[in-house]
């Protein structure tokens, strides 16, 4: 029991040790038991911002694949993934973080892109090599928004 606590504590330290200015580097994110327990940044996610990122075609573009009743005012919700109504009830925040960071860690064959992962496809556009789709803070904002989908 004590040992488990110590291990947990050290893992936490190890993570916080590599928090850089804009958050943990994508290749240093630790996924354990399918969860990312520690937020990627020290700034708490902002659900309002997350909502904008979710709909923005140049950022999350989550609506391309997911329906979301909270955005009934937006035309055209995608059907490629499941509806996200109730996602905040279905999933713990730590799991939602993993889904957004790298959905393949939970659904191995999924078509959902990894939004904070360098595990990407071949021939990435030159100016995007080594870059993630969202920033660490944007992931935290989207996760905060998903938690509001009850």
């Amino acid at each position, binding site marked *: 029991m004590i040992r488990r606590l110590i291990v947990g504590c050290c893992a936490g330290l190890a993570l916080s040790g590599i928090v850089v200015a804009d958050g943990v580097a994508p290749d240093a994110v630790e996924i354990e038991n399918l969860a990312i327990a520690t937020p990627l940044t020290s700034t708490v996610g902002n659900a309002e911002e997350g909502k904008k990122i979710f709909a923005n*075609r140049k950022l999350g573009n989550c609506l391309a694949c997911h329906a979301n009743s909270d955005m009934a005012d937006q035309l055209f919700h995608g059907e*490629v993934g499941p509806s996200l109504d109730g996602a905040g009830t*279905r999933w713990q925040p730590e799991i939602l973080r993993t889904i957004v960071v790298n959905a393949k860690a939970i659904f191995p064959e999924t078509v959902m892109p990894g939004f904070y992962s360098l595990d990407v*496809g071949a*021939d990435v*556009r030159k100016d995007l090599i080594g870059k993630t789709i969202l920033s660490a803070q944007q992931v935290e904002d989207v996760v905060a928004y998903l938690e509001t989908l009850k």
Partner: protein
Amino acid sequence: MNYSRFIAAGLGVAITTTFVAATVVAGPVEDTLVIDDEIEIITRAPSSEGHPLPEVISGWHYRTDSTRAMEADSFANGGMLGVEQGAALWSTVEGSEGKSCESCHQDAATSMAGVGAIYPKWHEESGRPMNIELRINACRVDNMGAEPYKFDKGGQKPLTAFIKHQSLGEPVKVNLEEGEMQKWWEAGKELYYKRTGQLNLSCASCHELNNGKHIRADHLSQGNVNGFPTYRLKQGNLISLHNRFRGCIRDTRAEFPDAFSDDLMALEVYTTWRGQGLSVETPAVRQ
């Protein structure tokens, strides 16, 4: 910590919601395509042996009522303007030999009937598959003493559309027995399933796994190639096949290959095979 309870619950719901979503998806529209009340178009066909999908379906079935109606009426089909330009180019003399296409091939309605349905085909001299665009260029250089068309430039799109249109209604068939076509088919298949770009998607991610579903406003089809060059309403112009390929690859946020490169020729061989049995629809009308 123990998340398994939440994961189990989450997965359970995810599976049910996916299932529910799948039953409300629009899917391909039930309809039949007869152009000008005369030419019957095969828009659904049993798939070739070894095909992952049970049936091949033309992109026409995934378009709106008005777009489908436009293709059924050649006066309404904006692509027919391009076909007429192609007809004029057919008889236009160019190059040092003082010849036009017509000088050698006479009436396209006879000489080109069925030709567009069996391309791409093996070309022994160049040791690679040849599509209609490359065939036109070879004739221009070797027989007319003219410059080859640059990709999508000059008369390339209208002349290709004109030649393919001579096979309107003919079922597409590629001959994989000739030369090294089988090898190119295999290379094309590999590319079809290769995930590319920052978004990490393959052709199959959209056109095999998710055809019939909407990706935002777009209704995903099987990505069949039987209608090319197609008339796209968005551009108000003919769009070539390799331009479409490059657009789809670009949308995965990847670098895209050159037109007529080995990669895109292999993809053309493979996707043409996937749509075998569907009629040539050139110029098909798409969004």
